[in-house]
């Protein structure tokens, strides 16, 4: 399934946050959206999944959704959003319980995604017992359980320390390599963008507009930390964003 943003503009009160955004999310690829803080990238992601409605423009989905897909547009949140009173397996089951699948089938899906994210040994643990990286793994497992057409990731690694971030990036790459999924990945971290993105969309500062779209052709599995080609891409992206980020940083907040 493909997602298309068609002339999206939005304002909160008097503040214009996004202006005239056209963007296509092609099937089976990861599109990273980067931009300075406050450029509306998270707002854009909320539009994509229908959690918010843009003032102007349309969000369109096109093409068949995969078979046995329970929730075509599925989010992974920065703060994990796990229910603290449910175990790891219970948190994953939560999103299947409304689907009227037979219990055995639910159990099979839970076992399968736990195995794919290497969480099988933690199935009965409560979120409070898990580290941040493990919690985000649970959230990824939960997202995979509904077999989404598009994964919408809102700074999924930003709440984690840099070592955990590396490990989880490797996990995401290997998950994608085994079964390519479509994803929109919002981040302010350029290193994550060049590691995970097939296409990187750079937004300008508020009001956010598409400043440039960069394609990276190196296959995900071959990208390594410290790869000179990737470093060059990252440096170029930073050049693009630097002035915008500085200007955004110097803006007075209108609260």
């Amino acid at each position: 399934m493909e997602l298309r943003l068609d002339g999206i503009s939005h304002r909160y009160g008097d503040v214009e946050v996004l202006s005239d955004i056209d963007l296509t999310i092609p099937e089976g690829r990861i599109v990273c959206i980067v931009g300075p803080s406050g450029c509306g990238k998270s707002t854009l992601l909320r539009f994509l999944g229908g959690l918010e409605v843009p003032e102007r423009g349309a969000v369109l989905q096109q093409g068949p959704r995969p078979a046995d897909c329970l929730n075509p547009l599925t989010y992974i949140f920065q703060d994990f959003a796990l229910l603290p009173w449910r175990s790891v397996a219970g948190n994953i089951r939560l999103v299947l319980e409304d689907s009227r699948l037979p219990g055995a089938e639910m159990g099979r899906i839970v076992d399968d995604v736990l195995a794919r994210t290497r969480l099988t040994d933690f199935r009965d643990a409560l979120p409070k017992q898990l580290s941040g990286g493990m919690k985000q793994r649970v959230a990824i497992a939960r997202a995979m359980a509904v077999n989404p057409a598009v994964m919408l990731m809102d700074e999924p690694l930003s709440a984690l320390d840099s070592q955990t971030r590396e490990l989880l990036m490797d996990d995401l790459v290997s998950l994608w390599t085994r079964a390519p999924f479509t994803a929109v990945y919002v981040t302010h971290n350029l290193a994550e963008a060049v590691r995970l993105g097939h296409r990187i969309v750079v937004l300008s500062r508020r009001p956010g507009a598409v400043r440039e779209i960069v394609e990276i052709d190196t296959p995900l599995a071959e990208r390594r930390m410290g790869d000179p080609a990737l470093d060059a891409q990252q440096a170029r992206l930073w050049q693009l964003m630097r002035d915008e980020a500085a200007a955004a940083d110097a803006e007075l907040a209108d609260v």
Partner: protein
Amino acid sequence: MSDPDTDRRPAEAAAATGDASAPRPVPYRGGGYRPVHIRGIGIVTFIVLIALVEWGTRTGWISNLTLPRPSDVLATFGDLWTTGMLWTHMAPSLSRLVVGAAMGVSAGIAVGVAIGLFSVVRAGLVPLVAALFPIPKIALLPLFVIWFGIDEGSKYALIALGTFTPTVVSTYGAVDNVDRTLIRMGQSFGLSWVSIVRKIVLPGALPGILSGLRVSLAIGIILLVAAEMLGAQYGIGAYILEAGSLYDLERLFAGVVILSALGVLTSSGIGWVERRLLDWRV
């Protein structure tokens, strides 16, 4: 805790000799301001206070018009126990408390959740609850007798109304405090409204509801005495009122002790439920 003075001594010595280049330990200054669970102090406080009163009444330092002697109160309590009157008074009181509080608390939780979930209900009922809350329910006693009769009905109603308002306030506060990101998550996975309320909102509000219940049930016990002013023959409240009008301090205090024991019991009951149901809390 170690004595901070001993830690400071080498540093002071160095300062005294004026030797600024000598290595000095960094003084510790991070202690305190953190409640620590200490066993037994609570009981010791009770024992010391009671012993003080016992000693004071025996020596005549406290006149027996001011306070009864604790050992006499205990003897009165023993009488209550052996004559079986304790149960005669406890049974009706407990049933009034249980029935009244059950009605008030369940209605309160239902209304509180409705206020938390529906803006129309909130707009309509929050001012009403704010108006009801500060009314001393005891002032409405005559009305309750007219409305619900002189029997158990008016007693149930008084306790129910008294526990209802605080439960409503704490419940809708608890629902308001449920983590919105969890609700957003539920919506983003396409969960039904019923599922979101049952699996996300209610468990998320449970800690706040339970801690509100402590207050509500304590108010219920207070109102028990008021309810039994309505011509009850038996009951802890009736027992206390009768003792009070006869200025029988031993019996008055025996009744008061039973009420506080009831308070401690309900509070520790809620504590037990919290430990069972809320072990997921960090």
